C-alpha cells in the first residue's frame, strides 16, 4: 500500500533521513523504532507532506505522493497524528472531530447549513469509539494530557483514512492510559481494517501490536523484520535496546 524508496532529506547538510526504504502492506501494523534523533518524525513528516523530500519516492496506492501538499495527501486516504498534541485548542472536543469530518465530506464550502445540524451522529460515534463521548463539550485546551493524545488520534480518524500514521501515540501517558491506547490502536486495525504505521519508545507496546518493525538510526534504516527477528538482532540490541539479551 505504501512504498518508500530511497527517501532522503537533509537540513543544512545534516542528513536527517538518508536512503530509507520501507514497504507497508494493506492491513499491516508497522512500527518504526530508534533512538531520539534517528529521523522517525522527519520520515513521517515527509510521508504526510509537512516536509518535501530531497530525493526518493513515496508510492501510496500506486501513485508518487512525494512533495504533494498535506491536504492533497490527506484526500488520498492517508492521515496522521502528532507526537506533540496538535489540535484545535480553543474549540470543544466535539468541534475538533466534527471539523475533521467536515473536511472529509468536502463540506468546508458549505456556507448555509448551520454546523450544529451536520454530522452530529457520526461525530458522536467516533468520540464513543475512542472513549471521549462524555467530554464532548469540554474545550480541548482543558483536557488531561492522556485525553488530548486520544483526541489527537480521533481528529486523525475523522477523515476516515485507509492509512494512519501515529507519531508516538502514548508519549507522556500514564500507564493505565497506555493500556487503553493499545486497545484503541488494536481496535482500529481489527475493526476498521486500518493500515497503521507508528513510532514509539514503549517497547512493550511495540511488541504487543506491531506485525513488523523497522529500526532506524542516524537517519538510515538499520534493519527490518518481524518482532522476533528484531528482538534477537545483535545490531539492534547494540544500537537501541541496549541489552545483551540476545536469544
Amino acid at each position, binding site marked *: 500500500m505504501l512504498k518508500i524508496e530511497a527517501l532522503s532529506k537533509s537540513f543544512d547538510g545534516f542528513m536527517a533521513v538518508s536512503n530509507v526504504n520501507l514497504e507497508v502492506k494493506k492491513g499491516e501494523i508497522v512500527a518504526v523504532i530508534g533512538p531520539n534523533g534517528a529521523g522517525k518524525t522527519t520520515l513521517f513528516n515527509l510521508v504526510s507532506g509537512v516536509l518535501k523530500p530531497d530525493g526518493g519516492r513515496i508510492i501510496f496506492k500506486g501513485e508518487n505522493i512525494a512533495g504533494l501538499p498535506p*491536504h492533497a495527501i490527506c484526500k488520498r486516504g492517508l492521515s496522521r497524528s502528532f507526537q506533540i498534541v496538535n489540535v484545535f485548542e480553543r474549540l470543544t472536543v466535539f468541534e475538533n472531530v466534527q471539523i475533521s469530518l467536515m473536511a472529509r465530506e468536502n463540506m468546508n464550502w458549505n456556507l448555509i447549513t448551520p454546523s450544529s445540524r451536520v454530522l452530529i451522529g457520526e461525530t458522536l460515534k467516533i468520540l464513543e469509539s475512542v472513549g471521549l463521548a462524555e467530554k464532548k463539550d469540554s474545550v480541548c485546551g*482543558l483536557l488531561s494530557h492522556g485525553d488530548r493524545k486520544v483526541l489527537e488520534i480521533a481528529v486523525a480518524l475523522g477523515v476516515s483514512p485507509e492509512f494512519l500514521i501515529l507519531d508516538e501515540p502514548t508519549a507522556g501517558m500514564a500507564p493505565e492510559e497506555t493500556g487503553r491506547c493499545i486497545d484503541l490502536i488494536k481496535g482500529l486495525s481489527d475493526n476498521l481494517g486500518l493500515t497503521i504505521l507508528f513510532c514509539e519508545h514503549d517497547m512493550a507496546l511495540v511488541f504487543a501490536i506491531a506485525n513488523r518493525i523497522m529500526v532506524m538510526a542516524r537517519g538510515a534504516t538499520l534493519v527490518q523484520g518481524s518482532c522476533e527477528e528484531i528482538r534477537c538482532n545483535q545490531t539492534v540490541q547494540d544500537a537501541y535496546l541496549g541489552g545483551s539479551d540476545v536469544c
Partner: protein
Amino acid sequence: MNKGFSLGVWGAGIAALAALFLLPAFLPRFYVYLISLMFVYGLLATSLNVVLGYGGVFQFHHCVFYGLGGYATALFLTKTGAPFFVSFLAGGFAAAVLSFVMGLITVRLSKLYFGMLQISLGSLVWAIVYRWYSFTGGDDGIHGISLPDVISSQKGAYYFTLIVTLVSLFIIYRIIKSPFGSVLQGIRENPARSGMIGINVKKHILTALVIGGFFGGVAGALFVVVDKTVFPDMLFWTLSLEVLIMCLIGGWFNFFGPMLGAAVVIALRTFVSGYTVYWALVYGIVMIFVIFFLPNGVLGYLQQKFKPTKGRAVAKEG
C-alpha cells in the same frame, strides 16, 4: 454551543430592534446621523472580524475595501446612469474583486508578514485614488452625490442603513455558524493541522478574505448613503487601525463585539472631541484599560461575567 437562545435573549433582541426602528421619531437629526454612522462602522468592523477574529488573519488594512466600495458606488452614481440598486451592489462586488486580487498575493504569507504586505498593497490603492484627479477627484473626493428620494433624507438613510446592516449581519452570522465558519475557526486555531485533515488552507482563507472584503465594500457603499460623500481618507491606513481597535474594544471573539466596539469608538470620537482636541489621549487611555483588564473586549467581559459557561474562545494571555 448555544443551541436555542433563552427567552430573555429573544425578548431583549426584539425590544432592541423595536427601539432602533422607533428612534428617529424621537431623536434630533444629528443623533440619527450618528447612529447611522455606528451601523456603517459596526458592519465594517464585523466584516473585518470575519477574517481577524474567526480566521486569525491579521488583516491590517481592511479599510481599502471599505473605501473602494464607497468609491465604486459613488462613481457608478455620478458617472453612469446605473440605477441605485446596481450602484450600491457594485460597491460590494468591487471590494470583493480587490480583496480577491490582494488576497492572491498576500495569502502566501502568514501572520505579521501578511499584515505588512497588506498595508503596502492597500497604501498603493490609496495612492492611486489620492492622485487620480480626473477620475476620483483626488484629495477632494466626490461630494453631493444624489440619491433616490426615499433614502436621501436623514431618516431614509437611517432606515436603509439599519436594514442593510441587519441583513448583512444575519448573512455573516450564518456563514460563521456554517461548516465553512467552523473550518475557518479550525484554521485560526491550527492552520498546520487543518491542512493535515485535508483542508486547502490558503483557498479557505482567500474565500474568507473575499467575504470580508465584500461586506467591507457594502459598509463603504452605506457610508455614501449616509454622508453623500467619499474621500481618500476612507482608504487611509489610520482608519484601518481604528477599525481594528473597534474589534479589540468590543471583543473579537464575540459576534457582536465589533458592533459594540464601533459604537464606543464613534461615541468617544464625537463627544470627547467636543471638549478637547486631545481626544485621542482619552481614546489611548481607554485602549490601555481594555488591553490590561478586558483582554476579551467589553462584550467578552460581560459574557464571562453573566454567563460563566465553559469559557470558550478565551484570548490567550500575553
